[in-house]
């Protein structure tokens, strides 16, 4: 179980540097969502990226459906467009908090990493709720010196969603 400790086959120093860089990535990514800069969101992905949000029940059963399912930058941008221009939903405040970042390894030039996330939602005149708790299963590529998501699988424990999920995770 040694690898469970370092959580990686990488040289520990390299793994740590990557972990710290990924933490900075998460902080910037969440800030874009929490500040409502949804148009910036597709920019955190490579053009060939796959993005999916699905329940842990589906993930455990190997079922492919996605609450949100995007193949490539076009679909990511279309999701952002719909949220900004066409979608009707009540005003709300959102916060995304990320912890427990783990770098699991390097394969074909992409970094595999995981993290735990919380989505905290506050509707007008309602309390703050844990709208979704889950884990990121990420694959990062380095493009022009910085990390971008080539794949993000958001697997949520909160199988029973409270009404709707209006922003990506």
């Amino acid at each position, binding site marked *: 179980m040694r690898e469970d400790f370092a959580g990686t086959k990488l040289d520990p120093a390299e793994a740590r540097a990557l972990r710290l860089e990924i933490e900075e990535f998460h902080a910037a990514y969440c800030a874009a969502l929490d500040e409502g800069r949804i148009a910036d969101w597709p920019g955190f992905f490579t053009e060939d990226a796959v993005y999916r*949000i*699905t*329940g842990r*029940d*589906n993930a455990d*059963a190997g*079922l*492919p*459906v*996605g*609450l*949100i*399912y*995007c*193949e*490539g*930058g*076009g*679909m990511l*941008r*279309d*999701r952002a*467009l*719909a949220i900004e*221009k*066409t*979608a*009707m*939903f*009540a005003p709300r405040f959102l916060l995304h908090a990320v912890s427990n970042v783990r770098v699991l390894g390097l394969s074909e030039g992409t970094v595999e990493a995981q993290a735990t996330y919380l989505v905290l939602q506050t509707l007008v005149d309602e309390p703050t709720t844990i709208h979704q708790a889950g884990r990121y299963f990420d694959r990062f590529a380095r493009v022009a010196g910085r990390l971008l998501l080539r794949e993000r699988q958001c697997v949520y424990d909160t*199988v*029973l*969603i*409270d*009404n*709707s*999920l*209006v922003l990506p995770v």
Partner: protein
Amino acid sequence: MDARATHGSNADRGFVWPEEGLARFPDWVYTSDEIYAREVERIFHGACWNYVALEAEIPAPGDFKRSFAGPTPVVVARGADGAIAVFENRCAHRGAEFCRPYRGNAREFVCPYHQWTYDLGGVLVGVPFRRGVKGEGGMPADFRLEEHGVRRLKVTTRRGVVFASFAPGTEPLEDYLGPEILADFDATFDGRPLKILGYYRNTVPANWKMYHENLKDPYHATLLHSYLVTFGLLVAGNRSAMIVDAKGRHGTMASAKPDTLDVPEESRREMRAFHDNLALADPRILDYVREFNSPWSVTMQTIWPNMIVQRELNTLGTRQIVPQGPHRFAMVWTMFGFEGDSDEMTRHRLRQGNLMGPAGFLGLEDNEAMKFVQDGIAKARPSAAVIELGGSEEGTSPNLISEAAIRALYRHWRDVMGV
């Protein structure tokens, strides 16, 4: 809930319908604990077919899933002989909800509390120490296992869809649905074996009937769902129909994707939702692969009291309504394709899945809108909804700008509920 919930006369209870008749729906239809208790008794536990599963979810002997018939937890299991049984998820001994996982495979069901054991049909087959120990204790000599299984529901299936009823005398499903509804039901479940793609589950903080109203309300689709309109999937004036069965319980909202995006000026004026000059970077999501023997590219069927059949272009699914009191219900979405779909066809269905579900471009808007309605009626002074679109016509409507299907549903509902 307290036993008294269903006592007393309507007048005593304040359940007086407005004199305008079906042009008005009073708030208590959506907010009263007593009305809800009566709905459970007379509708979900009455002579209705509750949707509980797809056969494809439990293909093999011993496969089972947790499900609900109305608010009541049930188990749907396939026996060794391949037959499907539906029974209450409530142990006959002291009442434990013994089946806990979403789904699985088992040879039998063992209640964890005292290990009373049921076969795949819900029949009690084992009571530990039934004869006691060393001849002491145990069940009475006249205790018959066969008299103490969990309560079984009447089961029927059609084209791989499983329904259950608490009432032995419930009419055959085909009569229950009627020919108008069967036609589009069979168009979607066209005989190809289903392939489960996955699930969504969500709650909606609104009365369960609003979900039926939403899908018997073609008017909203052209107005709430800017996405549909902006990208040309639906515009008032499309070839479309709102089809209702003879009793007014069920419905099919149907439309045909226009070959070209061409919104008549008349409609543009009416629709604030319409945005010019917006285009999708990846329009594959709007592709319609003609795979059904139907004039419609979209059919949304509401099957009373707890099922929706979604055929939205090529993204397919059933939805199960699980009422949780007058102010909330849960929704279980089962998304599927067909065995033999190519990888690309499966991926197409998944991409198109972004339209529906609690994060779908359309799905999230309906859920939000229903919350708005419940918020509005729960705290206001007593009032009533105004249901006058299409005048007083009831039932099938030739056009989208009518609430005839909703009125038809409530004529039936009032009859069953005695209000």
